Structure formats: C-alpha cells, structure tokens
C-alpha cells in the first residue's frame, strides 16, 4: 500500500470524483502552472460534468478551462482573481452560473468554516515525500510560499499532492504535512519556471510613476505611522515598488526599524528586511526568485497561510496589524470605492486578491494610480464594479495631487502640514475630464456573470455580461 500514484486519472478514479463535486487549486505557480489544466483535462476525459472549480486565482495559462466550460464539465467557478483572457470569456457569458469572487482572506475562511466546502484539493507541490509532506521552497519548480493552499490541505474532504520532485526520505520542515493527504501523484513537470516567478521585479523609471511613488513615501512619513514597529505591504507594480524604494531610503536615514513586511513578497521587500527596515517578512506568496531564495534560507522570512494573512474571522490576522498598504486600482470613484475587477469596457481582468482584506485591516490604505490611463480618468462618479468599499480607503495618490477620504480629516491635516498637494477628489475628476473629455457611459447586458462577495460574506456588487 502506498499513497503514490502514477497518474491524475488514477486519483480521480480512486477518489470517485463525480458530477457536481468541487475541486480546488492554488495559484503559487501563477502563469506557469500545469497542474490545473492537467487535472481538468483528466476530469473531462473521465466524462464528469458540472464541476465547481475553486481556484485561489486563475491566469491566462488556464485558458483550456474555457473548453471545459463550453462542454459543461465546469459550471461553477469560485476565485479571488481572474486574468483577462478567462475574464473576457466569462464576461461574454460562457459560464452557466455566475462566478463567485472572494478575497484571498475570505476564500481561506469559508473553506475552513464549511460555507464553501471542497471535495478534492489538488495541490501543486514543488517537493513532496511519499507521505505527502510537501513544500514550495525546494525543487526545480520552487515557488516559495504555499500559503493559499493551506486551507485546502487542511479542510478539503480529500487531498491530492501533485509534484515533480518526489523524495523518498521524510521531508524536513514541510509547509503542508501529509496526515490529511490521500494520494501523491508524480508528474514530469508541474510548471514552467519562466511563468512561475519573474526573474527580477523592476522599479518603474516612468517619471509619472516616480512622482506618485515619492508622494506615497512622503504621505507615509507625514501620517505619523512611520516609527519603530511599523508594518507595511505593497504590490509588485512598478510604482508601488518605487514607493517602497523611497520609503526604504527614509527608513534607513531615520534608522527606523519596522516590525513586518507582509503579503506577496518581492525581492524588494527582501532587501528592505535584510537591511534592517523590518524584523521579519510574512509571506503568503513569492513574486520573484529573490523572494523564493529568501524564504528558503532566511528564518525571519516566514510562510503564512491565507487565514493567518487575512481571514475576516481571524482577529489575529496579519492584515489587522498592518499599518500601511499601497494598492492599485483600475478605477476609483468620488466615494473612494475601488474597482480592480473590470477594465474600462466592463470586461473582467482581475479580482480583489488581498485588496479589500488589506484595505479593511490597514491603518493607512493608499491607492496609487495615474490620473489618466490612455485617455481614461482613474476617477469617476461611480465605479463600474465595487471591489473594495470606499469606507476602507484612506487616500488616493495621483501625479496631479492627493485626495484624502473625508472621513480622514486628521490625515488630511497632516498632509497639508507636510505641504503635500492635497486636492478634493471631485477636483481630480474634473481635471481629468477637462484634459481627456467626458467618456460615454458603459453599456452592459442584464445577465449577472459574477458576484463580488465582500470579506464579510455579503454581495458587494455584481458584474454584468458584455453585449459587444
């Protein structure tokens, strides 16, 4: 008797996967992932229909999923993020039931509490032993943290580990332990290294991005939060990273030692931690090779689960202890609601990920975005989709000025005292429209193609189908 199987087909047969079940996946192999496509092809081959796919995120590499949707193999999707290729097809209404969008934190939470049960979790693991003790830190497909897969591993009815580095000896310090693992399947390759992590994440050289980044760092400095013990999260976007660079300069100059850097971790945060800006890193997903190397070798670079990161039902979640987060947006409205789900044509091209989790938790939630992108104003009267509610957003940074949420008069005063260019958000909208013109309103259909579920479980918005 062994847990080790030679194919995914065998796992599907032995676990008796049948019509109507839910299978889950994690996205640490990002746009290099082979596992979701392999498993779904095997499920389709077995003639199984009406499957619900619960994936922490879906990328363009998962395009074969569209055929399984058209063929009725997949009729439901639950996810926290969806790339533009899958998103566009969903927006055109190919899926039978509306997509359920959740946040990274609440996805883990509802798998754990049974609101969104998983029948079989398929976990891509860059290294596993024969018992299913596994890690993402080593192996040819190393991706670093497996944080988003922890809830799946712990709470799914059945767990299958899929690896391309099966070792005989028991794995030391596994990220996921083998106790709840039913089967371990060995595959030639679980992912394309070029798509798993980027080599280096680069800081923007675009002058507009640098202006915004410098404002962002000065806002943090002026906010009163820049002191020993500060915690910080930023995305991997060029301007966000540039903001981290300016922040690092200020922290080193003032000899400020922060507590932790959080989130998806880039090499940039790794450097900040090494140079003493933070005591530790708390990592739910590695974005680049430096981050993978760091989580493997640096004991102060800690792997955390989605629940530890951002669960709304976990009072100790890291986001609740977060001082500052820098976030992006495709659209912000004059009530500070943020859209990160759809593009300017209403087509799905993203998702909350941890956006609304961190905005809700952080003491200072900052959105950074250029006032105009290709003739479109970042600020509108009403976002076409509410991803993150305005009452959790503190400030919008553009190259043309900084808009502070009216509920943060205290912050506004601090920024004015620091001589930062504070403007009313309506003024920003007017300026953009004066330069670019007033866009024709978005026309969508009547059919709901996705429900955006906020971290408290309520449907915060719906996304309608596209008619063109």
């Amino acid at each position, binding site marked *: 008797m062994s847990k080790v199987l030679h194919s995914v087909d065998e796992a599907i047969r032995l676990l008796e996967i049948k019509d109507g079940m839910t299978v889950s996946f994690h996205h640490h192999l990002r746009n290099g992932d082979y596992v979701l496509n392999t498993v779904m092809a095997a499920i389709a081959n077995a003639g199984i229909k009406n499957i619900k796919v619960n994936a922490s995120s879906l990328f363009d590499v998962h395009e074969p999923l569209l055929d399984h949707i058209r063929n009725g193999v997949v009729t439901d999707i639950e996810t926290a993020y969806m790339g533009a290729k899958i998103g566009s097809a969903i927006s055109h209404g190919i899926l039978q039931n509306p997509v359920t969008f959740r946040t990274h934190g609440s996805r883990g939470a509802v798998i754990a509490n049974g609101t969104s049960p998983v029948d079989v979790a398929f976990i891509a693991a860059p290294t596993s032993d024969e018992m299913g003790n596994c890690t993402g830190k080593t192996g040819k497909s190393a991706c670093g943290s497996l944080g988003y897969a922890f809830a799946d591993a712990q709470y799914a009815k059945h767990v299958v580990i899929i690896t391309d580095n099966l070792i005989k000896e028991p794995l030391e310090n596994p990220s996921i332990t083998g106790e709840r693992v039913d089967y371990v399947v060995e595959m030639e390759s679980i992912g394309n290294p070029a798509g798993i992590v980027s080599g280096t994440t680069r800081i923007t050289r675009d002058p507009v991005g640098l202006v915004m980044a410098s404002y962002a760092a000065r806002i943090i400095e002026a906010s009163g939060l820049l002191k020993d013990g500060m915690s910080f999260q930023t995305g991997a976007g060029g301007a966000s990273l540039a903001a981290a660079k300016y922040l690092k300069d200020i922290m080193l100059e003032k000899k400020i030692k922060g507590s932790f850097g959080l989130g998806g971790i880039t090499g940039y945060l790794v450097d900040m931690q090494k140079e003493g800006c933070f005591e530790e890193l708390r990592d739910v997903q590695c974005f680049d090779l430096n981050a993978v190397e760091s989580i493997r070798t640096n004991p102060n670079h800690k792997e955390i689960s989605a629940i530890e990161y951002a669960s709304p039902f976990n009072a100790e979640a890291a986001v609740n202890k977060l001082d500052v987060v820098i976030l992006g947006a495709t659209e912000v409205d004059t009530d500070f609601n943020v859209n990160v789900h759809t593009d300017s*044509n209403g087509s799905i091209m993203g998702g909350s990920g941890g956006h609304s989790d961190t905005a809700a938790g952080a003491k200072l939630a900052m959105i950074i975005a250029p006032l105009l992108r*290709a003739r479109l104003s970042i600020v509108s009267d009403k976002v076409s989709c509410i991803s993150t509610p305005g009452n959790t957003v503190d400030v919008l940074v553009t190259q043309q000025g900084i808009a502070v949420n009216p509920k943060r008069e205290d912050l506004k005063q601090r920024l004015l005292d620091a001589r930062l260019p504070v403007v009313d958000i309506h003024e920003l909208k007017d300026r953009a429209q004066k330069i670019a013109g007033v*866009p*024709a309103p978005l*026309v969508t259909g009547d059919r709901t193609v996705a429900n955006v579920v906020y971290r408290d479980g309520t449907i915060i918005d719906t996304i309608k189908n596209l008619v063109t």
Partner: protein
Amino acid sequence: MKLVKSAVAGTLESNDVFVEIEPAENIDIEIESIVFAQFGDDIRTSVEDVLNEMGVKGAKVALNDHGALDCVIRARLETAVLRASEV
C-alpha cells in the same frame, strides 16, 4: 486643400495616435481605438472638424488610436494632411 499623395503621422505608442491618409474622391474615415466605446464619437467629430477646417474634400483617413488626447489627435491629423498635400 488637395491631397496629392499618401502620408502618415504619429506613432503606435500609448497615448498617441497613428494617422494614415491618402487622396480619395470622398471623405472616408476609419477609426480603431482602445477607447472606442468611450470616445469613438468624439474622435470622429474631431477628424471631421480638422478636415473641414483645412478644406480637405477628398481623403481616406485611417486612425489607429492608443488613447491619444483630443489635441494630439487633431495635431497628428493636421500634420498628416500637410504632408499629403506637399505644402
């Protein structure tokens, strides 16, 4: 203004527009734009305005727009017209 040859102006960079123009019997305008849904009508109006102002009666105009501002669209088209008319 009478066009005597075909000409181009602009680039395919973000926030710019690439304009191609050639002599023709009537006015024929073709617009491709990443912001067509939001600004397609505005862009057509601007193109018609510029051609009118410059007295162009016959031209085939093709725009490949990557989100250029209105002033940029007008300037690029004006340049294309001048190049096509050998002023």
